[in-house]
């Protein structure tokens, strides 16, 4: 049977993709960010840690979905997904190769579990999906695993509640565990952490909120999932609402998790960046040699 072996969180900001493309990953500004990801890159290469499939939870940034169609939860069921042209031309990265059998199985299971999914058989994927792949897998000719893109609306209000996201994660776990093929599946929650990209309040960062969010996500996601939208907006900035997507990842890992790695850094362009590796109870992957890099 398939099983969920780990959860990863990552930023997905386009500036990270641009830093890779322009060879700036070692400079004073971006160097610390890529150094912070290095333990994840090394960890995921180890035998047993590279997943067969990643369920990649992200938000589409007005690329696949315009103002005409706004699905709350969508799942990519296609064979492959091309990088979207977001105005700069498509990111020069490999196509994302899907896992249609697993994706359709998850879609069916989620619908039976009362999550009314939108099924995407054709979809371009934007930086929300491809930047985390670049940050964690580097610049390979082909991505080392299959990817099921899982877009969540956090752009047009209201986005789903944290509670709904957390419960969705739990249903994804059940769906994966009922898939008959023997597959290691990771769930990635992307976006965040605190940031605001609009208006006179742009540039808001709340380190205290972010680090508390990480602690709660690990130890008490049940309580965290009840946090209302207004609190995300007030505390973490208007785009900090992306953090509800981390609760989908967390819900998919079960009750207890082990924290294998934590990275937190300010700033990455307009944002505070958080990246984690979490492992469900009962998995026995060795953690990275460095367990934590958190800005003082």
């Amino acid at each position, binding site marked *: 049977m398939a099983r969920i072996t780990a959860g990863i969180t990552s930023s997905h900001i386009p500036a990270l993709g641009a830093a890779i493309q322009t060879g700036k990953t070692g400079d004073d500004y971006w160097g610390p960010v890529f150094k912070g990801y290095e333990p994840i890159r090394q960890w995921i290469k180890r035998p047993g840690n590279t997943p067969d499939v990643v369920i990649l939870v992200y938000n589409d940034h007005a690329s696949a979905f315009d*103002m005409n169609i706004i699905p709350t939860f969508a799942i990519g069921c296609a064979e492959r997904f091309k990088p979207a042209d*977001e*105005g700069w031309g498509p990111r020069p990265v490999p196509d994302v190769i899907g896992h249609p059998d697993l994706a359709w199985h998850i879609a069916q299971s989620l619908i039976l579990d009362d999550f009314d999914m939108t099924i995407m058989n054709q979809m371009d994927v934007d930086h929300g999906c491809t930047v985390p792949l670049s940050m964690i897998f580097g610049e390979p000719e082909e991505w080392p695993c299959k990817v099921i893109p899982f877009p969540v609306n956090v752009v047009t209000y209201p986005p789903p509640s944290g509670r709904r996201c957390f419960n969705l994660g739990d249903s994804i776990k059940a769906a994966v565990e009922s898939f008959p093929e023997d597959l290691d599946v990771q769930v990635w929650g992307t976006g965040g952490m605190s940031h605001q990209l609009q208006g*006179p309040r742009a540039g808001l*960062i709340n380190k205290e909120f972010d680090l508390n969010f990480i602690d709660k996500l690990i130890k008490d996601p049940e309580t965290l999932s009840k946090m209302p939208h207004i609190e995300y907006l007030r505390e973490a900035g208007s785009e900090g609402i992306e953090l509800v997507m981390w609760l989908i990842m967390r819900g998919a890992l079960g009750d207890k998790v082990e924290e294998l790695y934590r990275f937190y850094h300010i700033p990455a362009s307009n944002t505070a960046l958080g990246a984690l590796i979490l492992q469900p109870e009962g998995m026995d992957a060795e953690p990275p040699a460095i367990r934590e890099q958190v800005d003082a």
Partner: protein
Amino acid sequence: MSDKKERIDIHKYLAEFEDIPGTRVFTAQRARQGYNLNQFAMSLMKAENRERFLADEKAYLDEWPLTDAAKQAVLNRDYNAMIDEGGNIYFLSKLFSTDRKSFQFAAGSMTGMSQEEYAEMMLKGGRSPEGQRSKKGGY
């Protein structure tokens, strides 16, 4: 009904957004107001449209049913004014990407700070949430 759920009061939910300083949440009302502006921005995902737009911005904008204020905001690259017209930053990103500008450029342009000042603020840890959470509460 066996499992009665706790419902959120939608009026209270929406009203709270107005209490956040310097922020316009992309509600249904704004989504409706900005429909054409946002769809215009989406059209810039095609290279041929970007070329046509850059060659004659006004003519390109005139193909869209936009208010004069929205057109002027685009021509001026006034992102606060575009958001006032119902624009959303992720849609508008197609416009600043067409200009070869970054999210930091666009975000900074809305704060009244220079690009250098804004970048410097981010390097120093960003804008503090103190006093920025609630207009009424002042916290």
